[in-house]
C-alpha cells in the first residue's frame, strides 16, 4: 500500500523562479528566504519519496474563464510548463503517474467530489517553483508528480471547509493505493498577500503566524473561516492558504512538525515554509 510520508507547504511566487533562474539565491534580498529550504531538501533526500502530489492553483496558464474548475486533477503521462507571459524560462516537462491519478480520481468522485479530470494540463509557476525549491538539481528529482489544482481565480471559490474535506478524501485515496509507493504532498502558495487594488501590498503577519501554528494541530479552526474572512485576513491572493488546508486534510490526524520558516517579504508576499511528517 502507498504511504503518505508527510507534506510540505511553501510559497510559490514567480519572483522566486526568477531569482533561481538568474542565480540570485545568495543575494542579500533573497538569502534569508532561500536559507529556509535546506532542511526540507535534506528530509526529502532521507525519505526518498516516489510520488509528489502537488496541490496548487493555476494563475491563468492552463485554465481561462471560459471554463474554471473548482477542483482539477491531472491524469497525464507528462505535465508541460509554458510561457506565462513574463519571461520565466520554460522548464522541462514533469513525469506523471496517470494510473495513480485515476485511482485518486475514482476514489474522490466516489466520495462525492466533483472534480475535473485532466489528461493534459500545463503547469504554471505554482507547480514548478516549489519543485525547483525542493529539487534544485532536476537530475536528482526521481519522483513522479500528480497535480491537483484548486480555483483561486474566479469567485465563488471552494470554502476552506470544502478544501479541507477534499484533502481528507485525497488522503483516503492515497492510503488505499495498492502499490508500495512513498508519497509526499506539496501544498503551494501563500501566505498573506494581495496584488490588486488600493490594498495591494497587504501582509498580515499575525494571521500568518496563526496559520503556521494552527495548521499543525488545529486545522479545523482555519477550515472554519469563510472565503470572505480569508480574503480579509490574508489578502486576495492569501486565499492560497486553501492549498495548505487541503494538504493538511490529506495528512493523518497526528502530524509532527519537522521544520518551519517564515520570512517577510519576498516580492509582495509573506513566505511560509512548513514541513509536516505523518505520525506513525
Amino acid at each position, binding site marked *: 500500500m502507498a504511504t503518505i510520508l508527510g507534506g510540505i507547504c511553501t510559497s510559490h511566487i514567480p519572483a522566486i523562479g526568477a531569482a533561481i533562474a538568474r542565480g540570485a539565491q545568495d543575494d542579500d534580498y533573497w538569502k534569508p528566504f532561500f536559507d529556509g529550504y535546506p532542511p526540507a531538501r535534506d528530509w526529502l533526500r532521507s525519505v526518498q519519496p516516489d510520488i509528489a502530489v502537488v496541490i496548487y492553483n493555476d494563475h491563468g496558464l492552463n485554465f481561462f474563464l471560459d471554463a474554471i474548475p473548482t477542483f482539477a486533477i491531472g491524469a497525464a503521462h507528462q505535465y508541460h510548463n509554458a510561457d506565462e507571459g513574463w519571461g520565466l524560462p520554460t522548464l522541462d516537462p514533469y513525469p506523471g503517474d496517470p494510473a495513480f491519478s485515476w485511482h485518486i480520481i475514482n476514489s474522490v468522485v466516489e466520495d462525492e467530489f466533483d472534480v475535473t479530470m485532466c489528461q493534459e494540463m500545463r503547469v504554471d509557476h505554482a507547480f514548478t517553483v516549489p519543485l525547483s525549491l525542493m529539487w534544485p538539481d532536476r537530475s536528482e528529482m526521481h519522483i513522479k508528480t500528480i497535480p491537483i489544482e484548486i480555483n483561486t481565480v474566479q469567485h465563488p471559490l471552494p470554502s476552506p471547509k470544502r478544501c479541507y474535506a477534499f484533502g481528507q478524501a485525497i488522503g483516503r485515496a492515497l492510503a488505499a493505493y495498492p502499490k508500495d509507493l512513498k508519497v509526499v504532498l506539496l501544498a503551494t502558495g501563500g501566505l498573506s498577500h494581495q496584488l*490588486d487594488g488600493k490594498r*495591494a501590498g497587504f501582509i498580515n503577519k499575525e494571521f500568518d503566524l496563526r496559520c503556521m501554528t494552527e495548521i499543525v494541530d488545529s486545522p479545523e479552526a482555519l477550515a472554519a473561516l469563510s472565503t470572505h474572512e480569508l480574503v480579509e485576513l490574508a489578502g486576495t491572493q492569501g486565499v492560497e492558504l486553501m492549498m495548505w488546508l487541503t494538504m493538511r486534510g490529506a495528512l493523518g490526524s497526528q502530524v509532527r512538525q519537522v521544520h518551519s520558516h517564515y520570512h517577510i517579504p519576498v516580492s509582495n508576499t509573506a513566505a511560509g515554509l512548513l514541513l509536516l511528517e505523518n505520525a506513525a
Partner: protein
Amino acid sequence: MFVSQHTQDNHEIPGTTIFDGEMAMRGYQLNKMCYSFNEAENRDAFLADEDAYCERFGLDEEQRDAIRNRNVLSLIKAGGNVYYLAKFAGIFGLNVQDIGAQQTGMTVDEFKTKLESAGD
C-alpha cells in the same frame, strides 16, 4: 479580530474587489485579451498595433482607455482580474511591485519599504 463564520455578511473590504460573477461578466473580453498574452506572438501583435488588438477582442471604451493608460485600478474597475492583468503588465516588464506601487500611489521604493516593514 476574527469575524464569526455565521454572520456571512460579506461586507466590503476596503481597497479590495472580489472577482465574482458580476466582475467576470464585466471583464470577460478584457481578461480574454490578457490571457492571450501568455503567447509571445500575441504580445508582439499587441505591441505592433494596440488598438487593432483591443478591437479584435471587443473591448469597450472604458477598457480601452484603461489599457491605453496602463492604469491597473481602472482595469480592475472595468472587470480585469489581476491574474490576467499581470500578463499585460509583463509585456512592459512591470512586475507585481511596480503595479502595487502604481495602485497605492507610491514610488516603487516606498512600496518595497512598506512591504519590508510588514515583517516588523
